[in-house]
């Protein structure tokens, strides 16, 4: 633990430097600008990489090569796609509600950006560390559904409307399961603050410490968050074979790029959230009190741990999508209301009991 580099040293140093040279107001402003730029850069780069990764993973599962022409191993494929999307004509829709039509992609992007700010990437490397961290993330990500509904409604097209309504029903339902499954670990850890949840996993990840209830909660979280981000077996809202592209049918060019990017970044965020809460965040793999083992594990920097774990979860999510057929909307909602939510509630009661009796590790 002591060997881990604490990023708050770096941020503290920058803060001191700025305050020494500018008035406090300007210093704060500059810090905000720096954080914003870094976060934007991270968002863009990770997003670009994820799009490429998806195509490669999809290709491997489907027994073919993915992109391998543009750049070494096809790495610049996404850049090429981005340039293409930026240069596409923005097709204005007749009789569409122009203000809402233009607003919708921005809402979606802003929401996912705001949730990114709360993720702990390493010790001290976290933009916002609220003491209600988990609640903040859940609340903000719920706003994404507004963007989707606006997109579907303002497109003035039956297909988009069907897609948006389906998506709205789906997201609103699955938020419950996501929240309840996260609640189990909050009960274990005793706090909603994300950095504290990570710190409490210094002697083992909650997935293992919390044994069966935590494992069940992790599985439910995985399923529910895949449904939240409209991916995998739950992508009825943008089912190509039925409704062309669902709520973002009518979008072209940069606005479509926003939806597209937001979907991948949402995937990153739910993976990061799951990793933080269940798999230890940036905490290396520690087992109880095995000091020697833990020391070895500490050699790998926390940032690397975080990245590996997040990409593992992302890989799982991608794996689902390319293997399973889609669920129908009523089957999807049945799954949530009749199976996942009762399971979550029972799990919660069990966990509360465990914590009360002190039977967890």
């Amino acid at each position: 633990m002591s060997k881990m580099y604490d990023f708050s040293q770096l941020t503290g140093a920058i803060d001191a430097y700025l305050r020494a040279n500018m008035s406090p107001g300007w210093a704060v402003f500059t810090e905000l600008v720096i954080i914003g730029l870094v976060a934007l850069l991270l968002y863009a780069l990770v997003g670009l990489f994820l799009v490429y990764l998806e195509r490669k993973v999809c290709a491997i599962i489907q027994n073919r090569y993915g992109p391998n022409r543009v750049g070494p191993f096809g790495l610049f494929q996404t850049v090429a796609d981005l340039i293409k999307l930026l240069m596409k004509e923005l097709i204005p829709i007749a009789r569409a509600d122009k203000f809402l039509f233009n607003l919708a992609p921005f809402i979606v992007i802003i929401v996912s950006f705001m949730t990114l700010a709360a993720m702990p990437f390493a010790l001290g490397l976290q933009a916002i560390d609220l003491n209600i961290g988990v609640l903040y993330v859940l609340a903000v990500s719920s706003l994404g559904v507004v963007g989707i509904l606006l997109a579907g409604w303002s497109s003035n097209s039956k297909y988009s409307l069907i897609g948006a309504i389906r998506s709205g029903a789906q997201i609103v339902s699955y938020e419950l399961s996501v929240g309840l499954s996260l609640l189990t670990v909050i009960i274990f850890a005793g706090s909603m603050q994300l950095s504290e949840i990570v710190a409490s996993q210094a002697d083992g990840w909650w997935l293992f410490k919390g044994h069966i209830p935590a494992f069940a909660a992790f599985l439910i979280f995985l399923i529910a968050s895949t449904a939240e981000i409209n991916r995998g077996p739950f992508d009825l809202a943008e089912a190509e074979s039925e409704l062309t592209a669902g709520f973002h049918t009518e979008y072209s060019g940069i606005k479509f790029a926003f939806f597209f990017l937001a979907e991948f970044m949402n995937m990153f965020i739910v993976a990061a959230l799951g990793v933080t809460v269940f798999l230890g965040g940036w905490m290396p793999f520690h087992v109880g009190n095995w000091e020697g083992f833990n020391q070895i594990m500490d050699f790998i920097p926390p940032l690397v741990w975080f990245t590996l774990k997040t990409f593992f979860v992302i890989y799982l999510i991608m794996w689902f999508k390319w293997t399973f057929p889609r669920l129908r909307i009523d089957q999807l909602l049945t799954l949530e209301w009749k199976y996942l939510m009762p399971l979550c509630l029972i799990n919660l009661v069990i966990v509360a009991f465990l914590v009360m009796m002190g039977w967890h590790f």
Partner: protein
Amino acid sequence: MTMSEEIIIKDIIVGESEDYMINVGPQHPSTHGVLRLEVCLQGETVKYLIPHIGYIHRGIEKMCEFDTYSQIIHLTDRMDYLSAHMNNEAVCLMVENALQVEVPERVKYIRTILDELNRLASHQLWWAAFGMDLGALTTFFYGLRDREKILDIFEESFGSRLLHSFNYPGGLMHDVHPNFQKRTKEFLSYFRKKLPEYNQLLTDNVIFHQRSKGIGYMSKETAIAYGVTGPSGRGSGFSCDVRKYAPYSAYPVVKFEEKLRTEGDTFARYLVRMDEMVESMNIIEQLVDNIPEGDFTAKMRPVLKLPAGEYFQRVETARGELAIYLVSDGNKTPYRMKFRSPNFSNLFVLNKITAGGKIADLVAVSGSLDLVIPDIDR
């Protein structure tokens, strides 16, 4: 609400204000081909649908009245292009029976092997597209990857992958490539190992069961009444395999089963086709080692004139019963040639079996009926 038994849509049902019509097609990723379905929806539920066809009507029956019989072979290829070989064979058999020509045994065996290879390739493409429609996008690649092996065999012997026009009244256009037997056997051993993968990916998947069991139920009476033949009819228990009831070519000498299921839902139709793939492989295996030596064609006159009269020939394509009704007046072109295409009858049962279901079910059901639109329009 239940749909009434009235099959003729005479009046537009006076709808409540929540009804709206959407068009599925003619350009749509999942109606494979140009088919327009006008679907009346109430929320997510399909109340009724009206198919509109004719986007690819080429007037094949009219063209047949001006073409000689060997030219008609090339037209029939393009009807149900995934069972091109069976379509050609139907015309050839009709001409041969009318002229009472005895084709060599070799021709019969090769025709049957090619029939079954064609049926396999067609079912593989159906499986690929069906999985893709339901969202399991990987099935598309697996199915087509294996289908390429069959198309390679075809290309080696005939020069083209899909539309061969290889059959000719009296026999074949030319003999098959010397590698044909070897490659077919290689393919059989390869595909037998791959088929369990198909079952692992789709057949045993719980989500797939939810999407297909109990969906699009068609009773046996409905299947007979609407003339739904082929695997779609056999999924409802309608025993209609022309290879059993009116065998032709080498079918009398092979042992195979007609796969029937009684559940009548999408899953039953799916399983019938999967079983048929295995049966096709069994048939090919029985024949491929025993192809008799001999001529690849019987001696035919250069200009074929059928005696005046009426002829009726039926074959089993991958989708059902193709029947050709020919009226000849003794000339070298037919007087009237009517193609009873299986997809034409199969399409019009769609309204009956999807009413009351959801849009997502419409996609699953029309995928399980395996429609090829050029066959409907001719």
